[in-house]
């Protein structure tokens, strides 16, 4: 035993996870960093100014208008339900895709901090997801206004939106954590990302509805992690119906798996980030 107690003892690590309880405690102690960092990022992107906020709202609206025109031209349904579906799903999809695009470089951009400060590295992708959440929230308000203008049905089933958003956030966080870790080892992942998200966008029931899909293509459902989330989301916020239990469970399973697998890799790798960035 030591004569006096050291405030920190550093011993060789074995492979695998760090002691989780201690990790969580240091992470919780630094929650102010996550809040402050995401706020600074948002300010940096000018979301604290009037025009910045207008842009934040205008951008997804323009996007949904463009896609709606596309649908009309291609000759799909073009009623108000379809427009509501498109907008709602696009907004939720952007929560996931913004979390990915902000998360991918979160660790490598924090190089200077990683080299010189001891802190739980997972704070960096978490901050990226927090930024994505703050960009998502105003679009929810826009959609609420839009759906009352369109006169979409309303019922208590709409409260299912809350668990769906929570599942989506968990999923988005898991993706941000995973991709930020992968990007430390393969720096060009960020370049592939737009292709990946674009493909995911087209393979998801956003520009089309889940019920439109040809039976031959139903396997897409199984391999697309956002399929069930978006299907449930559309049922709840556009049609004001209860989601299918199976869809909710599949979404939850995807979110939990991605979150835990990503976190496991991140935590077991993060101790060497300082020599890799």
């Amino acid at each position: 035993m030591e004569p006096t107690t050291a405030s920190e003892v550093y011993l060789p690590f074995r492979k695998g996870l760090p002691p989780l309880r201690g990790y969580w405690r240091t992470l919780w102690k630094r929650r102010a960093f996550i809040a402050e960092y995401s706020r600074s990022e948002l300010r940096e992107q000018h979301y604290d100014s009037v025009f910045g906020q207008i842009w934040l709202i205008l951008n997804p609206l323009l996007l949904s208008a463009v896609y709606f025109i596309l649908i009309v031209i291609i000759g799909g349904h073009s009623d108000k339900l379809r427009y509501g579906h498109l907008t709602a799903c696009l907004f939720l999809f952007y929560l996931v895709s913004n979390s990915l695009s902000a998360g991918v470089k979160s660790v490598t951009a924090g190089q200077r901090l990683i080299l010189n400060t001891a802190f739980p590295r997972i704070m960096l992708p978490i901050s990226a997801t927090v930024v994505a959440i703050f960009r998502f929230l105003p679009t929810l308000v826009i959609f609420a206004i839009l759906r009352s203008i369109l006169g979409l049905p309303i019922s208590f089933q709409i409260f299912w939106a809350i668990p769906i958003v929570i599942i989506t956030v968990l999923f988005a966080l898991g993706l941000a954590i995973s991709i930020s870790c992968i990007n430390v080892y393969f720096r060009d992942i960020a370049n592939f990302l737009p292709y990946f998200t674009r493909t995911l966008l087209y393979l998801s029931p956003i520009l089309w509805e889940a019920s439109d899909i040809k039976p031959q293509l139903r396997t897409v459902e199984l391999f697309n992690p956002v399929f069930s989330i978006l299907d449930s989301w559309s049922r709840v916020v556009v049609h004001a119906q209860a989601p299918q239990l199976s869809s909710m469970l599949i979404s939850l399973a995807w979110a939990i798996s991605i979150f835990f697998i990503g976190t496991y890799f991140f935590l077991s790798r993060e101790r060497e980030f300082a020599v890799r960035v």
Partner: protein
Amino acid sequence: MSNSLHTSGDIAVSVQHLGLTYTTTIDRRPTLKSRVKTLGRGTKHTRTVRALDDVMLDVNYGSVLGVVGANGAGKSSLMRVISGILPPTQGRVEVFGKVSTLLALGVGFSPSLSGRANVHLGGLAAGMTRDEIADHFDEIADFADLGEAIDAPMRTYSSGMYARLAFSVAVTVRPDILIVDEALSTGDAKFKEKSLEKIKELRSDARALILVSHALGTIRDICNEVAWLDKGRLVQRGNPTDVVDAYSQFLQVGKSAAIDEDI
């Protein structure tokens, strides 16, 4: 941050049989593309670095330890292990008190944010509370003497301004154990003098200081003890004059003006 509760002579850092080996990439920017392109050719993408090897060292409160050594000797690696940034591969490191965690050099990690925001973020990442940072902020800004530039994005800073801010953070947050790395020393002559004074002031304050520097004059001037590292091993340790002389001999430059000045 806590004012030092330690008395001079108490042990601050104890490094026992420390070894550090790590794997790093050969490419500056490892990519999937280069991996795929060289698939099956047996090209090596990583190399193993033996940064520290059986290093024994301790630092007491109220003393200043100078660390000298050529580039790549393992000085920065040693500081990172003491700060808890890199886990050791062998041995044991005990730290009795709060380390500055080189926090200062983390300042500026987000170049698009202002110096003020960076100081706040760096402090929060190092585990300080908002109040602690707010308490110290004026002193930091004052010491760094950046004027209005403190609110300009850090990408607009010159390397001297950057170093001034980093140094100010390091010395102002009053950690029990302060590590001053050579990278902190690119200020102008006036600032250099000011920072030397500050270090001397801290020395008389029963804190433990570790000063990593190539400026042998400064090392001889303010350290109580000097450790010389070479290729990850501790070559010599002891009285500043002896160690610095031996190191100068080793460098075969003798005593010249070029290595005497600077921090």
